[in-house]
């Protein structure tokens, strides 16, 4: 058992990061996917995670969305513990209620969109606000239409997902996540399942979000050029750890570690 007394009950002070991974370990049996990960993301920061497959980069996002449980360490969101909750002066594993409370500030978009096939684009966007946030249908509709307009999908709002292309579905999925007004947005390989010619329509939406909204974002992608353009910081993952991180230009132009260089040159050759 881990000694939980070394973890603060909450983060306080002037520069509380929006997301903080502290000593986070994830393993499947003997296979260690993430090894004592420490990662901080400041409010409003755009961080991109890159790395070879199997390096644990997607797991980082899935843990933050509570889709995966963690085996050690604590994740904090906006100063509050997410995976744990304070009880009797120490942190204990979070119960469902606590998870629901903290999870409300996180939104996620998936590689395979995961839109609800039995609902139209608009209904997909309204589902969370009406059912979970308890907004009136009127308010939820206005908010959803505004966001569908933002992602350029307003004229398809009454279509079911099966009638939409991959790129269109992903844009609706982004609007659906934004409709919950999250503080942190997670993008998990959102362009990997798309045909090359529609990747741009999705990356343009994300560009717009970065320039116009003050969201904290964490993204996993294989689009190196895109990552370089819009990120404040790039984290290169290797073997369950952060091998190297830094501002995009520095990391891409002047990588310090051999593995980073190897990875970047392998990616360049593939293009």
């Amino acid at each position, binding site marked *: 058992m881990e000694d939980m007394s070394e973890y603060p009950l909450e983060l306080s002070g002037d520069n509380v990061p929006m997301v903080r991974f502290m000593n986070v370990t994830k393993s499947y049996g003997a296979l260690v996917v993430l090894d004592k990960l420490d990662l901080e993301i400041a409010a409003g920061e755009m961080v991109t995670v890159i790395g070879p497959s199997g390096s644990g980069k997607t797991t980082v996002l899935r843990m933050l*969305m509570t*889709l995966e449980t963690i085996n050690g360490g604590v994740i904090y969101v906006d100063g509050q513990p997410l995976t744990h909750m304070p009880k009797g002066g120490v942190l204990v594993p979070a119960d469902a209620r606590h998870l629901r409370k903290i*999870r409300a500030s*996180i939104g996620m978009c*998936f590689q395979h969109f*995961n839109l*609800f096939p*039995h609902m139209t684009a608009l209904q997909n966007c309204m*589902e969370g606000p009406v059912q979970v946030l308890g907004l009136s249908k009127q308010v939820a509709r206005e908010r959803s239409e505004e966001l569908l307009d933002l992602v350029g999908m307003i004229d398809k709002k009454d279509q079911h997902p099966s009638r939409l292309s991959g790129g269109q579905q992903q844009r609706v999925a982004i609007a659906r*996540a934004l409709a919950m007004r999250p503080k942190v947005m997670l993008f998990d390989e959102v362009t990997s399942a798309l045909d090359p010619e529609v990747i741009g329509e999705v990356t343009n939406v994300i560009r717009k979000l970065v320039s116009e909204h003050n969201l904290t974002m964490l993204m996993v992608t294989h689009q190196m050029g895109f990552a370089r353009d819009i990120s404040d910081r790039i984290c290169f993952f290797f073997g369950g750890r952060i091998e190297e991180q830094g501002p995009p230009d520095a990391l891409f132009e002047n990588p310090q570690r051999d593995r980073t260089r190897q990875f970047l040159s392998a990616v360049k050759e593939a293009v």
Partner: protein
Amino acid sequence: MNFNWRWDFTFEILPRLLWATLNTLMAAGVGYAIAVVLGLVLALAQRTEFRPLTLLAREFVEFIRSTPLVLQIFFVFYVGPQFGIRLSPWVSGMVAIGLHYSAYLSEVYRGGLESVPKGQWEACTALNMTSRQTYFRVIIPQALPPSLAGMGNYLVGILKDTPMLSVIGVAELMHTANAIGSESYRFLEPYTLVGIIFLAISLPAAGLIRLFEIWVRRKLGMR
């Protein structure tokens, strides 16, 4: 060969058989209603985190599916009185056939629930939905269309199994045909008519179920 179809006899017994068909349809309907609800309970019980309940439900389903319905009907009808509970043929018949088909329907539901992609559950988590909202708003609506074919097959199945209720004296179609046979010593017409009546119901039923399935899919906006 003493084969001779008597039309006058046919028309004499037809009203009686058609009247009994109503009982058959009612038995199938009531039994199915029990099975639809109980089957859902059995399917959801197998998805809970509480291991003993999961195992118990699983074993119950296996047991029901491995033993003959006609024996279960006898069991329910005769065992009650041994312990001072008297159930009418109708009640015990409905309990037995409803229980039997609930085991089969729970398997249909289970398959339907498992056919919903994992990403749908994850999207619900990402939208911070409760497990109740997840089930009722997202998972069950999607599990329904793939379950409909199986549910329809078992509706026809339960109809075709109602003749077994005749063994404890439920006055359905088979029971009536038996009665006519023993009164008149003519078996050709009653048994053949029973077969034709069943065909007349179950053949179109398959097509109707298929149409219903398409209609539901369209209603839910799914292809």
